């Protein structure tokens, strides 16, 4: 009763008739029995079950008939639906096994061809260096394969085969060891890698057969080792899941994105943004710093960074016209990092710090730039209003995107907001004007040159005429040549002066020669008279006469 009351009080009115059994047997029904009383419900359920069983039976019969009809053509199919079903299932099974079989076979084939190509990859060495390692080796990615080949290539400067083999083996061994210790904390892994570099370097210095190597060659070998190991282990060591590198990457990326409103003026970079050359160099620097992420070994990453920094120095030179100091370089690098927002920046920095050869980061130029990159990252992470010489209020508004910092007044373009295209157009117009001026100047110069040439020609003609006037050309009649005259005759002068001899210089020279020979050789005159034939024996003369 109380429940009823409560029910009515709640506004639910249940009619008396609805509480009775639907069958009208007079007993009360129950909603959980679909409104029937217990007895009627049991009957109904039983009936419906019976009906269900019957219909199922009918359905099964129908199916049997269908199967029979389908398999009537094939022999042995009349055995009934059971065998038919079995057959189709076994067929399916067979197909499946066949499929997986072919799959494993192709995979096996892949392995086979790959491993044979690894041996082929180093044809001259395959008997010496690869066989110990290649059977154990899993399939290598093309990049890894390339570094393996490069590494083997690099080992050739070692004179002793055995030592080269030893180095290769220990590198290989180390890679396996690292692959098996991926669960270790990253600091320990980093330490392992550093220890390996140290032991390699010691080995190179102390090994008796390595004595022939110069310091440069040793460094080259160590570079090779480093590149080889880091490229092969890149996947394990770069942004490993055991660290929070990934989250920090995302955090840094978001942070940099939220700072995209920072202008170079706020950082005091002094970069002339509106200069097209500077813009080009900025783009190159950005491309280079983004490329850092796509490289595998620390060396390659660092060399991308060095390239980026060189572009920055170039653009600072364009903007400042003096060697850039760190006072200008660091802000510029920060600006480039901000503009580029390189993906996985934190991971890259960590990877290089952990696994590059420490001596590289300590001393070289690359180390300096890397340190600056670390500084830039640290600066961006802790950037606040004060560092940009803004008020806290301004900084917050810019950060939340409520306001956009005003564009600095551009010195040659009056209005602040000019789109890229307009700037380019103005730049082009300026360029065209310059070209026009140059063209005009060139034309003037050409005209002047033409005038000068004309004057020169006239002058030459005039001079020639003057000369001709001063010295008229008379052509005298030709005189016969007198070659062999008496010693006293003035033949020499005649020969030299008479215009007729001009045509015969050779003859004239011969004449002079002849004259000098005969006339001026005084010794000829002092010579004794020529010998005359004498009678040697009078008897013989007499004898012959008689």
């Amino acid at each position, binding site marked *: 009763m109380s429940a009823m009351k409560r029910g009515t009080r709640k506004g639910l009115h249940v009619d008396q008739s609805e509480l009775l059994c639907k069958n009208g047997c007079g007993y009360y029904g129950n909603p959980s029995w679909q409104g029937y009383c217990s007895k009627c419900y049991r009957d109904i359920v039983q009936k419906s079950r019976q009906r269900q069983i019957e219909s199922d039976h009918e359905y099964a019969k129908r199916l049997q008939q269908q199967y029979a009809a389908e398999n009537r053509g094939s022999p042995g199919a009349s055995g009934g639906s059971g065998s038919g079903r079995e057959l189709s299932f076994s067929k399916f099974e067979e197909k499946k096994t066949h499929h997986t079989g072919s799959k494993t076979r192709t995979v096996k084939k892949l392995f086979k061809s790959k491993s044979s190509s690894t041996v082929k990859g180093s044809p001259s060495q395959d008997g010496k260096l690869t066989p110990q390692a290649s059977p154990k080796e899993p399939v290598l990615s093309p990049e890894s394969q390339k570094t393996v080949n490069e590494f083997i290539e690099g080992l050739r400067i070692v004179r002793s085969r055995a030592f080269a083999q030893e180095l290769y083996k220990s590198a290989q061994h180390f890679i396996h060891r690292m692959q098996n210790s991926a669960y270790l904390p990253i*600091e320990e892994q980093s*330490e392992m890698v550093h220890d390996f570099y140290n032991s390699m370097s010691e080995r190179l*210095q102390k090994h008796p057969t390595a004595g022939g190597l110069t*310091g440069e060659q040793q*460094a080259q070998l160590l570079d090779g080792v480093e590149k080889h190991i880091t490229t092969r282990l890149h996947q394990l060591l770069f942004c490993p899941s055991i660290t929070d590198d990934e989250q920090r990457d995302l955090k840094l990326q978001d942070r940099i994105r939220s700072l995209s409103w920072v202008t170079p003026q706020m950082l*005091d970079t002094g970069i002339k943004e509106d200069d097209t050359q500077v813009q080009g160099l900025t783009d190159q620097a950005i491309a280079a710093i983004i490329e850092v992420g796509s490289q595998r070994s620390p060396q390659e990453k660092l060399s991308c960074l060095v390239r980026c920094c*060189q572009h920055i*120095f*170039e653009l*600072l*030179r364009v903007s400042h016209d*003096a*060697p*850039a*100091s*760190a*006072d200008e*370089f*660091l*802000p510029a690098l920060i600006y480039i990092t901000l503009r580029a927002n390189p993906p996985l920046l934190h991971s890259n920095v960590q990877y290089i*710090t952990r696994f590059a050869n*420490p*001596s590289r*980061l*300590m*001393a*070289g*130029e690359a180390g*300096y*730039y890397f*340190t600056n990159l*670390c*500084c830039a990252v*640290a*600066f961006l992470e*802790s950037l606040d209003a*004060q*560092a*940009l*010489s803004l008020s806290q209020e301004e900084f917050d508004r810019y950060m939340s995107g409520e306001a956009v910092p005003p564009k600095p007044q551009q010195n040659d373009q009056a209005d602040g907001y000019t789109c890229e295209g307009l700037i380019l157009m103005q730049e082009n117009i300026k360029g065209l004007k310059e070209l026009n001026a140059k063209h005009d100047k060139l034309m003037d110069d050409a005209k002047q040159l033409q005038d000068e040439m004309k004057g020169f020609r006239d002058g030459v003609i005039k001079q020639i005429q003057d000369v001709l006037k001063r010295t008229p050309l008379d052509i005298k009649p030709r005189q016969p040549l007198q070659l062999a005259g008496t010693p006293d005759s003035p033949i020499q002068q005649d020969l030299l002066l008479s215009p007729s001899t001009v045509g015969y210089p050779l003859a004239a020279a011969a004449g002079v020669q002849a004259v000098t020979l005969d006339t001026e050789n005084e010794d000829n005159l002092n010579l004794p008279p020529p010998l005359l034939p004498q009678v040697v024996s009078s008897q013989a003369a007499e004898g012959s006469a008689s």
Partner: protein
Amino acid sequence: MAAGGARGHQFKVVLLGEGCVGKTSLVLRYCEDKFNDKHISTLQASFLTKKLNIAGKRVNLAIWDTAGQERFHALGPIYYRDSNGAILVYDITDEDSFQKVKNWVKELRKMLGSEVTLCIAGNKIDLEKQRNVPADEAEAYATSVGAKHFHTSAKLNKGVEEMFLDLTKRMLEKDSNSKADATAKPGSTRRNIQITEDEPQEQKSGCC
């Protein structure tokens, strides 16, 4: 770290000091022997190397310039970690820049201990008339912190060569001493970026 042995000694020297005190001019004068010249061959003056030969020992100096602006002060530790020597430059006409040097010295001693060799350079002595930092005070301070003081002028090329030479000699001495120690306890050098948080915070609280 100083890498000794067959390849000679390798030293890292950082230049610290406020902006515009002439760090860049000093290093350009030393490495290129040029001052404010259009013919300076290097594109940059932030990282320069110099090869020296001192008493038969080959030394390679890598000179790291640092950004001197106040806003980058907190980044100092990243620059000077693992450096063998530091040159702290101030402008003799600028009292503030000398105060900055004192801050740097304190910080360096705290972070690197006595391992780092210090030089303090009072630059721009060509502007002796406008001197604002008393010479004897600066020298007394230098000796009190175990540093050497030099009066330099990049413009007149005074004292620059001497300063670098003296620094290198002292670094060599320290290196040979530490090598003797290192044989006793090897493998103690671990190098990771450690940006200490307390230093920049101090700076902030001081300025706000």
